[in-house]
């Protein structure tokens, strides 16, 4: 994977790279260890400082980072016995949404996630993680399968949004998303959703009607892209930075608004710097969240989810 470095993360990314090289040296020669410890300390400090002050649009850029772990990168690291399931049984297979069965800490679960591609060829296959109706109908099939067989559902959200195209409209993109929301709402099994990168509007929410929603530290979740919002408000997509700040789409904002239940801290410099470490952190959060739902049974899970979403919103009564 070619390393992509965003301008604002360069100082940290370069230090992380030095740490990596020094670590390799220290592995064969212990004399490098004090220097390694010093450099690691410095790197962590700088990263903490720099990343504490990131603007909303910079976090958006991190959430879309080309090196960020995607759903399959987590699947590989979090689960065993992965069996992918394909197709919506109606029209086509949509590779922008992946689904399957897997073991999580020995427990069988249904996994569904948006899937972006790396490189042009895979991105074309994955449609840049933008599903057609078939992707949502595959998800619905798997939500219903999980419900029938009593399997918890773990979803991974990472999409710019549902694809806006002619075929997508012809085949009922709206209906597919609405029906996915319904299938999630009525599933009588635990559902935990994690926003791992971009949470783009209704196309993201179709994987997001969960009992608990986690968000990675530099992931975002928004009703509209900052670019789209700026284009509508000011007819000027270049004011996306202002729109990003207004829309309150970063992890701390989402936590404060009650839209997510917990933030999963990312490795130094962001999840893209260390996929293994990011996966370990998510594993821990996901397992404790899933087991926290163990006391709830069938209809209680549906009720719990209902109350969670029923309470979201701000109005004067």
């Amino acid at each position, binding site marked *: 994977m070619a390393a992509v470095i965003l301008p604002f993360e360069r100082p940290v990314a370069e230090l992380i790279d030095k740490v990596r090289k020094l670590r390799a040296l220290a592995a064969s020669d212990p004399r490098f260890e004090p220097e390694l410890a010093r450099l690691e300390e410095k790197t962590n400090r700088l990263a903490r400082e720099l990343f504490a002050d990131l603007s909303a649009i910079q976090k958006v850029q991190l959430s879309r980072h080309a090196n960020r772990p995607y759903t399959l990168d987590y699947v590989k690291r979090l689960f065993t016995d992965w069996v992918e399931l394909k197709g919506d049984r109606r029209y086509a297979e949509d590779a922008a949404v992946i689904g399957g069965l897997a073991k999580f800490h020995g427990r069988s679960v249904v996994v569904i996630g948006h899937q972006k591609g790396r490189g042009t060829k895979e991105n074309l296959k994955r449609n840049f993680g933008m599903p057609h109706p078939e992707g949502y109908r595959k998800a619905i099939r798997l939500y219903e399968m999980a419900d029938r067989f009593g399997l918890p559902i773990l979803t991974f959200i990472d999409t710019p949004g*549902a*694809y*806006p*195209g*002619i075929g*997508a*409209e*012809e*085949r*009922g*993109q*709206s*209906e597919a*998303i*609405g*029906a996915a*929301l*319904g299938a*999630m*709402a*009525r599933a009588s099994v635990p559902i935990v959703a994690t926003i791992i990168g971009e949470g783009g*509007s*209704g196309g993201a*929410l179709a994987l*997001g*009607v969960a009992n608990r929603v986690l968000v990675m530290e530099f992931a975002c*979740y*928004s*009703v*509209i892209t900052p670019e*789209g*919002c700026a284009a*509508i*408000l*000011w007819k000027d997509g270049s004011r996306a930075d202002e729109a990003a700040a*207004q*829309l*309150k*789409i970063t992890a701390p*904002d*989402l936590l404060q*608004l009650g*839209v997510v239940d917990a933030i999963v801290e990312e490795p130094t410099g962001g999840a893209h710097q260390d996929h293994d470490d990011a996966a370990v952190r998510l594993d821990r959060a996901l397992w404790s969240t899933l087991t926290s739902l163990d006391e709830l049974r069938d209809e209680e899970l549906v009720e719990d*989810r*209902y109350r969670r*979403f*029923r309470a*979201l*919103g*701000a*109005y*004067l*009564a």
Partner: protein
Amino acid sequence: MVWPEKNALSLDASEKQSIGAGVFRLCDGCGQTLDAAALAAAFEVCPECGQHHRLSAEGWRRLMLDGGELSAWDAHLMPGDPLRFSDGKGYKDRVRAAQRKSGSDEAVEIGRGRIAGRAIGYGAFVFDFMGGSMGSVVGEKIARLFERAGEEELPVVLLSASGGARMQEGILSLMQMAKCVAALERFRKKRLPFVSVLRHPTTGGVAASFAFLGDVNIAEPKALIGFAGPRVIENTIRQTLPQGFQRAEFLLDHGMVDAILSRREMKEHIAALLGHLADGARRRA
């Protein structure tokens, strides 16, 4: 006390004052000059070409409900400003301006009414209020519509017309989609009918939540209905969209709605539908 904005009562671009002859309007469909009072009496349907012009919330009540009577539910809910959103003008100011323009407090009204004698839970979007956009109040009211209709064992008839989620309430407006559909799922468990009417235009978060989940979906003639707006699609695929794309007739052809009904036949048709669906429930009980 809300004072009318300057020019708040100005007429549509198509309206023309003609001295000594009352108000005339040009039809958006055929361009004919029509008597405004006659057009209003025909629920904004052109007698020449059948073009459906925008109908007010009050007009919809008169068209759909016996005696035009709605006993409103939860009309007191008012929008907050959870993000303190400002695009140069604050969200609160935008809301006040929308209230003045539309004469409604929010973008949907709900309540109990009757269709051909049958009590129903009724909801209608007010497109003039910020494009019928769905924020927290709209989401809350639609959730309450399904909840209360469920408790009172009423069928629901919901008339949508919305540009989608309300940007100024950010992610909370997205969450309303999940809230409304979850409430609809509970309502469906009671085996009560939901008739969804898709008016012009119904797009974005309203289309992609409950609007297509009716037991029966009905569209207005030529209504624009879809997930993504045509301009967004054009910018994405970089080609011109085919004639009639995302219009009601296109949706009928693609199996997404059961019927396209003109306003002249809408109430009668829905009354007949509700009669059929209730007959099954009566026999089972």
